[in-house]
């Protein structure tokens, strides 16, 4: 007997009698004995109280971001958490349902996804957004494979900025090997931004796409219009990756500047950092390429009485219909996280998002100013380049060592770039959001001063 198993022992015996069987073992006779075991070596079952104690002890062995002034980013950000988001996500109608294959009893999920698609599309500056992908890294991979398909597989080269999150680039390498796609990496110029002419030379009329991130891995905002232009001049698609989606509250999405794909990570929109997942990949493109798009898509239609209704659409692109020829193998995506982002964006509101992004910018500029004014050995790597809410701090020991020293001063200072290397000086990526108070900023500046 177990609370999570609906039948008690008598129920089981009753059903066995009905089936004319002696023992439940009789139902398993098609499994050869040589692959069976008597019992697994797992710890014994625990009751709820026991589970709470054990897991609380494990959770307590971690340092919670909120416990100290926290400036960690590099693709995962701590933003406001309106209580309504978790309240909606906790509704069983949303979290215990599945992919809305039966539209008549799934209008809630379907309409929420339709709203998500619209919100993402408006932020990206592109008309079509899908229902979600696993995360930012795999969204980038899908964008590359998408570009490869759009150019009918005739161009096997991808040009990617070195300032795309290095973890994303590593993930792309994993997939590109199998797809026979060659990757050329373009390092940033001295100001941490891409030089369009260098991109043009690398693409050399052979690339299926040019991929860049803005704000880039170093926090710097790229000059999007000329970069879209050089991609198109060489016959390639232009792809913008975004890892800090809140930046779109203040910066126009690449679609406004001619980018063909805007994709990336939308964890910033109400999804918990959660040690790296589940997060929320997003993907937006133009109507002309909609049929090459990966992932699920919700469309508007009517029911037989003519009322507005929503359903999954263009499923002829998907694996359950197209099998080996599908545009992606994705099936289960990140539905509940897309719902979180939808609730978050609607609670924060259109003007609210702009204000929130402006708050990130103001706080980040304040910390930058304080560090520059400090005059200590640590400085901004690219003081002249525009950033949104993240920047690279360099100087003696600016890496895991300085992060540890600042942790001892009760500041979670940021993410060392040394994990991945790069053509830039190793340093610490410092992210500032609306959750960082003036007191947090004081604490960071004071700790740096103390260590100087």
């Amino acid at each position: 007997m177990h609370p999570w198993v609906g039948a008690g022992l008598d129920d089981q015996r009753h059903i066995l009698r009905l089936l004319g069987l002696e023992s439940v073992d009789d139902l398993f006779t098609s499994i050869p004995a040589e692959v069976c075991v008597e019992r697994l070596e797992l710890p014994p079952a625990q009751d709820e109280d026991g589970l709470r104690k054990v897991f609380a002890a494990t959770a307590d062995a971690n340092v919670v971001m909120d416990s100290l002034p926290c400036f960690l980013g590099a693709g995962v950000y701590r933003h406001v958490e309106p209580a309504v988001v978790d309240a909606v996500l906790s509704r069983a109608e949303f979290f215990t349902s599945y992919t809305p294959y039966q539209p008549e009893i799934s209008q809630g999920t379907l309409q929420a996804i339709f709203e998500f698609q619209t919100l993402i599309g408006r932020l990206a500056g592109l008309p079509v957004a899908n229902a979600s992908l696993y995360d930012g890294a795999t969204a980038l991979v899908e964008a590359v494979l998408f570009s490869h398909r759009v150019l009918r597989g005739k161009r096997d080269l991808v040009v990617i900025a070195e300032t795309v999150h290095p973890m994303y680039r590593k993930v792309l390498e994993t997939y590109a090997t199998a797809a026979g796609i060659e990757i050329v990496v373009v390092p940033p110029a001295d100001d941490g931004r891409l030089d369009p002419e260098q991109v043009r030379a690398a693409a050399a009329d052979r690339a299926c796409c040019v991929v860049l991130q803005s704000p880039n891995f170093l926090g710097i905002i790229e000059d999007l219009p000329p970069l879209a232009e050089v991609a198109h001049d060489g016959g390639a698609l232009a792809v913008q990756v975004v890892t800090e989606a809140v930046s779109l509250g203040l910066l126009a999405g690449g679609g406004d500047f001619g980018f063909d794909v805007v994709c990336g990570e939308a964890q910033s929109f109400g999804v918990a950092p959660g040690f790296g997942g589940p997060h929320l990949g997003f993907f937006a493109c133009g109507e002309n390429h909609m049929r090459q798009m990966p992932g699920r898509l919700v469309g508007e239609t009517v029911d037989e009485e003519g009322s507005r209704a929503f359903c999954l659409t263009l499923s002829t692109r998907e694996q359950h219909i197209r099998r080996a020829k599908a545009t992606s193998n994705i099936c289960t995506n990140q539905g509940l996280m897309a719902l979180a982002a939808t609730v978050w964006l609607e609670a924060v509101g259109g003007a609210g998002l702009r204000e929130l992004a402006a708050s990130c910018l103001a706080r980040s500029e304040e910390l930058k100013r304080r560090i520059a004014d400090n005059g200590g050995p640590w400085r901004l790597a690219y003081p002249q380049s525009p950033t949104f809410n993240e920047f690279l701090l360099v100087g003696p020991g600016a890496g895991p060592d300085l992060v540890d020293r600042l942790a001892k001063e009760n500041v979670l200072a940021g993410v060392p770039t040394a994990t991945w290397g790069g053509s830039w000086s190793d340093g610490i990526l410092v992210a500032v959001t609306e959750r960082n108070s003036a007191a947090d900023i004081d604490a960071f500046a004071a700790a740096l001063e103390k260590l100087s």
Partner: protein
Amino acid sequence: MRRRAIRPEPLFFELNPRRVRRQGYALPVLDVPPIESSDVLPPELVRQPDPHVPDIGEMEVVQHFHRLSQLNYAVDEGLYPLGSCTMKYNPRINEQIARLPGFAAIHPLQPVAQIQGALRLIWELEESLKTITGMPGVTLQPAAGAHGELTGILMIRKALAARGDAREVVLVPDSAHGTNPASASFAGYRAVEIASNDDGTVDLDALDRMIDDTVAALMLTVPNTLGVFEHRIVEISKLVHDRGGLIYLDGANLNAFAGRSLPGLMGADAMHINLHKTFSTPHGGGGPGAGPVTVSKTLLPHLPVPRVVRVGDNFELLWDDPESIGPMRGFYGNFLILVRALTYIRGLGAEGLRTMSDVAVLYANLVRHRLADAYHLKYQAPSMHEVVFDDSLQARHGVHNTDIAKRLLDYGFHPPTMSFPLIVHGALMIEPTESVAPEEVEAFCGAMLAIAKEAEENPELVRSAPHDTPVRRVDEVRAARNLKVRWTPEE
């Protein structure tokens, strides 16, 4: 789910039509000097305010989503017998534990000394899944089953390349889930279908003819999508291995045999496990899932990085390994889903895991027993955790599986998986899972029997279903013809 007609819920963009400035959330007070964005940002890159995205009050937000939620059917409402999806109960304790700040509010790139609990949890789940499958290695990275398939096939590719043995083909049975051939194809292989024999399992003679030195792997689902166990699995694995190929098991249906039988003993080289199926993590309206892949000794060196490594009582992260296929995604997996799965495994223990499979299989056989006279069963082999009927008896009255599905909605049940597997025309694939009370399974069977009777006596009633849902039958053809995938302001 509400059943009566209600007023239609506007789209978010239709709320607050006068676009009055309202507030849904109060932001932290700006306690640093404000700045003009165009002073520090390139002005041409700054977004113009979007008048079409409104601001609404907190209660408006709550009502909007509350009303939308009431248009959904869910596991908590009643039986959700989607075959091969394992729509079991999602224990509430899992939800509580996954929301502990020590799990939800930690950053994946904190110094390892600050995240020892998280690394320990990953390690413990890895050990548990290795025990449950009898396989020596595992990665928790994949975000879903299909992602796990791709991860497994890429490892197979890497292992074969390391042997200097490039191969081109992955064999997939005609009963397989569509993700199997799609994953093989995304891993750079040609997916070739292999026909099933009369009992729905792999035809060993056909396999013998097809397996040559071009075949990298055979992808098999156990039990297969008919709910039938591949009883010659050991011979099949031996045949494939003898000719230099590897075995990929699709573990979507692990709920049928967890705690009784080990994929490691079946000869599996890689198997993905859908934590959102067997291990009770919520399906979330379409994810997030998690699709860990367990591997044999052959594939151990090729597991994705980063990996969690235990050093004495401490845990570290290994970011690079030239033998690895590389990372499959950002960070270490859908961690908060992993937390839920480990909670479930610890809550069940070894015995509970076995009871889980026992009752899942028992219920599927109860359904088979109850419906055997009313619905046609193409494959007679013993059923494990699911049973696949078809609509051939009802089709004589012009009632097809879609009609039966829509009529089930009126009876208050989610329909089975429809029209899959492809080898059963008009399929109705039923997986009750072990969670519900037997009375709920009986009530579902009662509804199915009533519909079979309606199909004979009043087929139009079934064909015009659903009658009692928030919207009537939805025009999916129109949605695909007149594509409208976003709200647009009226011209």
